[in-house]
């Protein structure tokens, strides 16, 4: 009995599988994900609105869908949220204004570190060259110097 049931269940599963078509995503969902990933949830600080479980983030996704349906561009939608929550709502800071400073600092620091490194290497090389010169054999100490040093 058990076997028959299992076989029937298997047969049904196999038969039913191709009948259930894959649900295809609405075309604008890709855009929802793309833009949503750039928006920071204002309530939870370091999550984007897609990952966040908060009600505010869900409502923001609803707003995002509505605006896409109205044919708004990504820039317009980001601008909409920025006018309400400021640059805070963008997960990557804009490259203009104060945000530009944030983008500039790492390359500047890298360049400064490189400059210091090169300077130190050069200085060391110079010191090594001098040391090489200094260790050239010299004339042995004369009688007077030896006596002065009490050797």
């Amino acid at each position: 009995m058990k076997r028959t049931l299992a076989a029937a269940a298997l047969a049904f599963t196999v038969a039913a599988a191709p009948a259930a078509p894959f649900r295809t995503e609405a075309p604008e969902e890709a855009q929802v994900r793309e833009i949503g990933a750039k928006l920071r949830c204002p309530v939870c600080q370091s999550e984007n609105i897609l990952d966040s479980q908060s009600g505010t983030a869900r409502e923001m996704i609803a707003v995002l869908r509505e605006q896409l349906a109205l044919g708004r561009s990504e820039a317009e939608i980001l601008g909409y949220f920025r006018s309400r929550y400021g640059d805070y709502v963008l997960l990557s800071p804009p490259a203009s204004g104060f945000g530009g400073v944030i983008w500039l600092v790492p390359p500047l620091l890298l360049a400064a570190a490189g400059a210091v490194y090169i300077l130190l290497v050069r200085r060391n090389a110079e010191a090594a060259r001098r040391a090489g010169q200094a260790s050239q054999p010299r004339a042995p100490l004369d009688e007077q110097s030896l006596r002065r040093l009490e050797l």
Partner: protein
Amino acid sequence: MSTPFPDRPASDRLAPGKPAIPRWKWLLGAAVVAVPLLLGIGLTRDPSYIPSMIVGRAMPEFSLEALSGDAKVASEALLGKPLVINFWASWCVSCRQEHPLLVQLGDRADLFGEFGIVGINYRDSRQAALGFLDREGRFPYASGLDTRGRLGIDFGVYGMPETFFVDAAGIVQARQVGPLTQEAVERNLKLIGAGR
């Protein structure tokens, strides 16, 4: 006088024009002090604080269903005199803290009419909100229902409670995040021309 260490490079010798501590050491020392200092200042700041975008701009318009079920709570009807807009919710713990102050503020608005006051019940259910008011005491003014938090997004609300102070021209002049205090109320009422 002969030079003491003739085999050492001239740069290592103390020359009269050269400081005893080279400049790069000063710079390094300054950095060692400045970096922890800046990081320390950073620690004292609240990372969840979001500066308001709406202060200095016109208040968003709204027309919400009233908590009481009466006429709609509409921004149009509230304009023309200074206005206090308080976002609250039954699930918000610190809303209880400011509750008596809001009731008092509502009575004052009723008595003197120097400003209007309205509540926005934010992401809440009517039942829970009414239960909250039964426990804490009724507001002497109307509250609109922002069940989905859409108006909250327009105001840039991110925490509960938040209170906005709007002048008679409809320009938002101040925002208070967190429970109101007597001092904050007086300061912000002055900003919208309703202070004493």
